[in-house]
């Protein structure tokens, strides 16, 4: 129990420069929270004054922000001065520490999305760029086996039994994605007066490399409907076209019912 408490105290201190400062002022107030042996207590009191504790705290923050920055570099760029306060708020409000790129970046994205939707964070292009980067992460970590491909000779399928190909994502932009992404990838802040309209981008990981292309808004809206399980009813011929293009595949566990 004692060693566990010692390690927990070390981790808490490494994670919080503020806790380190408070412990320097009043070690008893902090250490009474942990069941420590006298030697462990002396060790913690010693390290808190060592120069290397600042390095530990800095490394902790660098290691925690790395998965977020690596997976969401454009979002981080757009956050600008908000990046540190928002990540620190995220760390304070998220109990689980996870340095795995996919899980940590998805959790931070969900946190940021909630902050955007409540208006706690505002940014002209943040939401669409975040959606784009999230889709990229999804595809990077997507499994390629068993994607429910339907061959040309597949017997019968209903629309309800179809879904967007799992290696395809649709992202809706409210500004021209080519102009917007061109600015951000060059680390330039996009101008506020970028023309606003509805644009759709298709991210396609079915081949060896990720292909990104702008698609017709009507098709984009339709495929986004399949992605979100709210597509309007389609004529059988239109469904067949999408199936033949391998954009729609059989949903998991579905059974064919109606002939296309």
């Amino acid at each position, binding site marked *: 129990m004692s060693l566990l408490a010692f*390690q927990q105290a070390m*981790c808490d201190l490494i994670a919080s420069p503020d806790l380190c400062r408070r412990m320097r002022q009043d070690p008893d107030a902090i250490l009474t929270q942990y069941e420590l042996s006298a030697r462990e207590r002396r060790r913690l009191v010693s390290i808190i004054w060592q120069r*290397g504790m600042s390095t*530990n705290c800095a*490394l*902790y923050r660098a290691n925690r922000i790395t998965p977020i920055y690596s997976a969401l570099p454009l979002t981080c760029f757009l956050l600008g001065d908000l990046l540190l306060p928002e990540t620190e708020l995220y760390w304070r409000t998220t*109990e689980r520490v996870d*340095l795995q790129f996919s899980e940590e970046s998805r959790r931070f994205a969900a946190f940021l999305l909630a902050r955007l939707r409540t208006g706690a964070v505002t940014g002209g292009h943040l939401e669409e760029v975040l959606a784009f980067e999230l889709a990229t992460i999804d595809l990077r970590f*997507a499994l390629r086996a068993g994607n429910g491909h339907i061959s040309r000779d597949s017997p019968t399928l209903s629309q309800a039994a179809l879904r967007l190909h799992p290696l395809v994502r649709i992202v809706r932009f409210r500004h021209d994605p080519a102009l917007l992404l061109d600015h951000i990838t060059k680390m330039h802040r996009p101008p506020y007066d970028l023309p606003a309209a509805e644009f759709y981008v298709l991210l396609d990981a079915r081949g060896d490399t990720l292909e990104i292309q702008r698609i017709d808004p009507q098709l984009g809206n339709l495929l986004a409907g399949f992605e979100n399980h709210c597509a309007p009813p389609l004529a059988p011929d239109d469904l067949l076209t999408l199936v033949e293009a391998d954009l729609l595949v059989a949903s998991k566990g579905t059974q064919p019912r109606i002939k296309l």
Partner: protein
Amino acid sequence: MTTSLDPTSTEQPVGPPAGLPKFGVGLLYNPALPGFLRAHLDTVDFLEVIPDTFWTDRGPAHSPRYCEIEESVKVLNWVAERRPIIAHSIGLSIGSADLFDPQHIDQIALWHRRYHFPWHSDHLSFVRVKGATGYGHEAGMAVPIPYDDDMLQIIAERTACVQATVPAPFLLENNVYFVELPEQQMTEAQFLNRLAAKTGCGLLLDVHNVYANARNHAFSASEFIDQLDLTRVVEVHIAGGSELAGMYTDSHAGPCPQPVWDLLRHVVASATHLRAITFEFHDSYFRFLGDQGILDQLRQARDIWSGA
């Protein structure tokens, strides 16, 4: 050579891992390397990989728990057909109090059976603490362990557990540390020597970590190395580092500093069971190093290896 084995111990020391293939000089894989490997595979004798970075661990409550990252595995498979692969994990957290994850060891053992890694290594530190849920959460860095008798016992038991499950010799790597815990019962060298003698594990000697510790805590790196039982050293890591908040860190920032080459030469001359030298760099420094920079590091390491 002086070693620091406990003279009062009545336990019979277990010998070092034997019969391992002698590889030479290789690289630790990072995501910036696929292009380099395709162009210059002939310059590396082996590739070392961190298996934990080739899968996503969704936690013990999920089934399947481990989801492999296919684009990374594809590169690994390509190399595995052409060069030996060595496994160096980061997720055992062998020093965590009240937390050791048998599923993680099983997953590593699974990969050993698939790729036939000649040995397995991890770090002498802890990276996870037990959370309220019973499953560990990340400490955010590799935190050093105290070099005490009770910790030695814990690590020895867990080493035995890894050795019983993973079908390859097991090595532990010396850690870098930025704070010094007072009142430790052993020095780091004594701890490493006793652990190796007690369990038969090998040592992965990170020469750059020794250099960083010596520089930060003002001791002689070569004297530290002389205190180690170098017959236990199977693999050596070399790397570069950088300053952060007043200390020199193991950031793997580009080329090795000259003192690391000097220490490597010293180790290679004395470590009779040395099988591999691995150059590590962080992928964000690839632009700084470039292909030529990596080739230069490999060439310098090979010159020292060949001169042994």
